[in-house]
């Protein structure tokens, strides 16, 4: 049983009365997230991440397709019994204190009074808000709001935690604490599904990622399988002129560093050929270093390629979109 599963999940908005405009927010999303993983859901603004999350949680009705949370269909409200959710930029019940708010969330999960009290204290301690039990949420800073948001998402000890941009508004300490909490949840066997724009954190934390661009999933899988070995650096102690001349056309650069020769190759495709030439010339390889692509580089590469293939401007290459401007998919 997958923690999250979608089949052909699609959301199309129709706006306007006189001349209806079709706006494809999400197109045929097929996704499988196995239990116990941290899954990063990535994409530029307007890619459809929040729409997907809201559809999974029954807040938005799909135009077509289906989705399952812990094996239960998303339209079944009991599917959400084992799920915790933190929305993007929440402000919550500003008139309640943090403990009153968590108590309210506990009531919605039908917890008895003693359990609610216990979980409230535990959650406030977990997110570092002990001592703020009586503080009104209206007095909370942005970072504290994220913390209380995380606390309410974990109130029911969920098997699946869905977080929409959880790193927003957190200072470096807050981000570190959040990462620790997410790792802890993973160790407890829980699934974390979260969207974020902070790709370095995603690469560090996630087992798998999915990348959306303009409503379509363009890459999905384990992070280590997606990011490629970008360059190879071979180091040898000695290198004769004869061998160097043979290798030169294959190498990106050959340099001398600290009594070693360093041969840099653009990718792994020519590594075997160069190694053979070195061996034939009697030069023993001292060290092989691979320069890995970062998730950020992979993300930009995929978005640019997909945008070009579909005839859209590449984000970053185009003039900034006006605020509120909608991206309209041409459905022909």
């Amino acid at each position, binding site marked *: 049983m997958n923690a999250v599963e979608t089949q052909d999940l699609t959301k199309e908005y129709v706006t306007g009365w006189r001349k209806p405009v079709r706006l494809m927010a999400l197109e045929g999303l097929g996704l499988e997230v196995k239990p116990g993983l941290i899954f990063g859901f990535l994409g530029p603004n307007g890619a459809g991440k929040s729409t997907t999350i*809201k559809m999974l949680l029954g807040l938005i009705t799909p135009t077509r397709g289906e989705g399952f949370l812990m094996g239960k269909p998303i339209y079944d*409200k*009991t599917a*959400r019994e084992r799920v915790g*959710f933190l*929305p993007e930029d929440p402000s919550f019940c500003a*008139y309640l204190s943090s403990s009153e708010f968590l108590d309210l969330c506990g009531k*919605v*999960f039908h917890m008895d009074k003693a359990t609610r009290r216990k979980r409230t204290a535990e959650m406030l301690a977990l997110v570092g808000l002990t001592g703020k039990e009586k503080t009104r949420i209206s007095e909370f800073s942005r970072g504290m709001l994220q913390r209380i948001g995380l606390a309410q998402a974990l109130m029911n000890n969920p098997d699946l935690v869905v977080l929409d941009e959880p790193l927003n508004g957190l200072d470096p300490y807050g981000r570190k604490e959040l990462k620790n909490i997410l790792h802890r949840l993973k160790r407890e066997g829980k699934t974390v599904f979260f969207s974020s724009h902070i790709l370095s954190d995603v690469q560090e934390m996630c087992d798998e990622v999915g990348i959306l661009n303009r409503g379509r999933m363009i890459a999905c899988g384990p992070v280590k399988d997606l990011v490629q070995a970008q360059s190879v650096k071979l180091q040898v102690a000695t290198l004769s002129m004869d061998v160097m001349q043979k290798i030169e056309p294959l190498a990106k650069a050959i340099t001398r560093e600290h009594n070693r020769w360093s041969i840099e190759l653009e990718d792994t495709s020519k590594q075997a050929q160069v190694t053979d030439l070195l061996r034939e010339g009697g030069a023993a390889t001292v060290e092989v270093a691979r320069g890995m692509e970062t998730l950020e580089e992979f993300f930009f590469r995929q978005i640019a390629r997909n945008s070009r293939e579909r005839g859209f401007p590449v984000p970053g290459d185009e003039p900034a979109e006006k605020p509120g401007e909608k991206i309209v998919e041409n459905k022909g």
Partner: protein
Amino acid sequence: MIDTADMLTICRTTYTRVLRTKSLYLLLASVLCLVGAAHLYTDLTCGRQKELMYDSGAALITLVGLLSGLMVTFDIARDLREKVALVLLSKPLGRAHYLLGKFFGVAYLVTINIALVTVGIMAILHWEFGGWKWDFLQVALSTWGSMIMVTALGVLFASFLTELPAALLTLVVFVLGHSWEFLARTGAGIGKILFCVLPNFCLLDFKSELGNTIGVSWGVVLMAVVYALVYSIALLSLSTILFSKRDLA
């Protein structure tokens, strides 16, 4: 299946929230001052003191009830804007429970506020005329019925509109609902449609009769209140259907 525990949770939270609205206390204080000053009418009414006191009493109850009832439109919209609704509805809470909880929370506030003002007016009437004027309770009860309908209308409009259009539409329907007899006379077209669809607030208006010491039987008053409750149930059913289809973005 309606889970009353879920509904009560939302009802209590809503009541707590609207109770913390400072402007509400200002309104109540103003109304209680007006009620307190009602005996001044003696010098101004040329013998029609009782009629005027019933009239102004009913108007004050209507004002308090209307403003309290309209709070539901602002409360639901604020919940959606602040993403409280997203947080709660992403938990195993049905949308119908949420909406009904909101209705009952505000309806409870309407009831308490109307009861407070009624008690004040009854005390003044007792002071001015001696003896308890129980027939004023008929005015209070029928006005309460009207305000329950207003609250249900507020829930209906808030289920698919933002706060300002929802509040304005509720007020428009409230005004049109008092023109029900006029609409009934407009034989065809949109007037006829409105006549068939709009709530009839005239049915719940007994202040003229009671102010002029024309007796109204409790049976008639209760039937009018039953009408208001049945109409409110219909409005709430429609609201839950509309809200269940709404995308909560």
